[in-house]
């Protein structure tokens, strides 16, 4: 990311005075907007913008054979495509390690919140379960894909419909059997450490200036459900505690906005 070398310097200069180029406060997130279920072939979908970062998530809920060691549990699968259309530095080809890390952090944020009851996703023990496929494409990358993808996945899940099955467990096209139930609303908060300053929801230029990254997923009961530290830099213990407590503090505000958008868009 040599391209933003000059801008990175600007970022650092401003941060010297606890200011961001974007005029945001250190722990402020960018605005979000969401469109729901505009894609008919998906069982649920969301298009989310976080500032200028734009991602789309599509859900497919498919009957599959259960894993032998969990015959009565459904499963989820998260795949994130760092689509080359969204960033000149993303290549085509098989998933990169960046894409794999991102997918797995989003997967854990949702899975570990226990918002999806995997037992309820069992169709017939040992024979058929529902697998919830969450596929996410980056459309425009202006930084913080972690939070954008996680929130977009959550929005898509919350409006997803479960297909109807016939007696042979085959999907009946265009018929549905209720909604996916989501018992928790995990929201991911990602921080960047630049020099010795920490900001929430870094944009692309801030990411280019970053030394370390910290992501933590919080649920409505203010529990932590997933954490990932990244990049070459290090955090002090107090910094980590401060970021966790900031995320918890910010949860209600973000969740409120998120819910409001969802309710305004969605009938159910």
């Amino acid at each position, binding site marked *: 990311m040599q391209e933003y070398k000059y801008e990175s310097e600007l970022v650092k200069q401003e941060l010297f005075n606890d200011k961001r180029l974007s005029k945001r406060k250190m722990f402020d997130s960018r605005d979000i907007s969401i469109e729901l279920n505009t894609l008919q072939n998906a069982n649920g979908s969301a298009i989310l913008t976080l500032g200028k970062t734009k991602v789309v998530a599509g859900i497919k809920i498919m009957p599959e054979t259960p894993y032998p060691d969990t015959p009565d549990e459904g499963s989820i699968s998260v795949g994130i495509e760092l689509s080359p259309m969204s960033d*000149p530095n993303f290549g085509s080809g098989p998933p990169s390690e960046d894409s794999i890390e991102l997918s797995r952090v989003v997967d854990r944020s949702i899975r570990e919140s226990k918002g999806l009851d995997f037992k309820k996703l069992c169709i017939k023990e040992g024979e058929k379960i529902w697998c919830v496929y969450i596929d996410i494409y980056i459309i425009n990358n202006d930084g913080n894909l972690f939070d954008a993808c996680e929130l977009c996945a959550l929005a898509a899940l919350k409006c997803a419909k479960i297909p109807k099955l016939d007696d042979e467990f085959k999907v009946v096209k265009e018929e549905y059997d209720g909604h996916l139930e989501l018992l928790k609303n995990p929201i991911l908060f990602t921080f960047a450490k630049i020099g010795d300053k920490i900001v929430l929801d870094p944009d692309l230029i801030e990411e280019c200036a970053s030394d370390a990254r910290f992501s933590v997923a919080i649920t409505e009961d203010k529990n932590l459900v997933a954490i990932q530290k990244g990049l070459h830099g290090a955090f002090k213990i107090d910094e980590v505690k401060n970021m966790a407590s900031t995320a918890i503090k910010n949860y209600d505000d973000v969740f409120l906005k998120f819910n409001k958008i969802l309710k305004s868009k969605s009938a159910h």
Partner: protein
Amino acid sequence: MSKKKDEVVYFDEKGKRFDGRSQFEIRPITLKVGVIERSDGSAYVEWGQNKAIAAVYGPREMLPKHLADANKATIRYYYRMAPFSVPDRKNPKPGRREIEISKVSGEALSHSVDLEQYPNTAIDIFVTIFDSNAGTRITALLAASLALADAGLPMKDLVSGIAVGKAGGKLIADMNKHEEDASDAVDLPIAMLPNNNDIVLLQMDGVLTEKEFYECLDIAKKNCQEIRELQVSALKEKYSVDFNSGD
């Protein structure tokens, strides 16, 4: 029990198609230029249920270098369908169909751009289909051509296109998935430079008489010219300049 294909009716007593369209009526098209900030050019096209986003990056350095052409830029076209864009979930890995479509679509667009101006470079076009209902390769092509124009590349003309075909015994324009599954279905995607009627993409599956084939070409020609107008409008909307002036 599934209905036999032969019992399916493709035209009602008033000659209307399953989705209410008349024989040669096309589905609504929405086009928007400049939708991906990071790209050099981009466009979004909605054609009925089909939704495609295209981004252009380039001219930029060709990597690996040995693929570079010393005389001109090389267009690389990547047509991809999102796993959730089809009734069954699609494997995210590009399949043989996507690779073939990418090849012929890239060739079609290569005719429209003055590639000689940028020797040794690559012009990468990435198109993703997010929702589909027959006709995605043409939807993608419209978006890609707009994205090339948005990237400011020198072009002979825009590439317009349509899938014409046949279902239930009659020729139709812009068939949908339901019609594509007819037992006598013919799918004939075609793309042209509408200003001089250069055919740059043409494929066909299914059984047509010689006469029907010629009719299809003529239907396509008319549609391409109309669709070009929509593309020009979309460009004007972004740039507020007259793209027709230099024709």
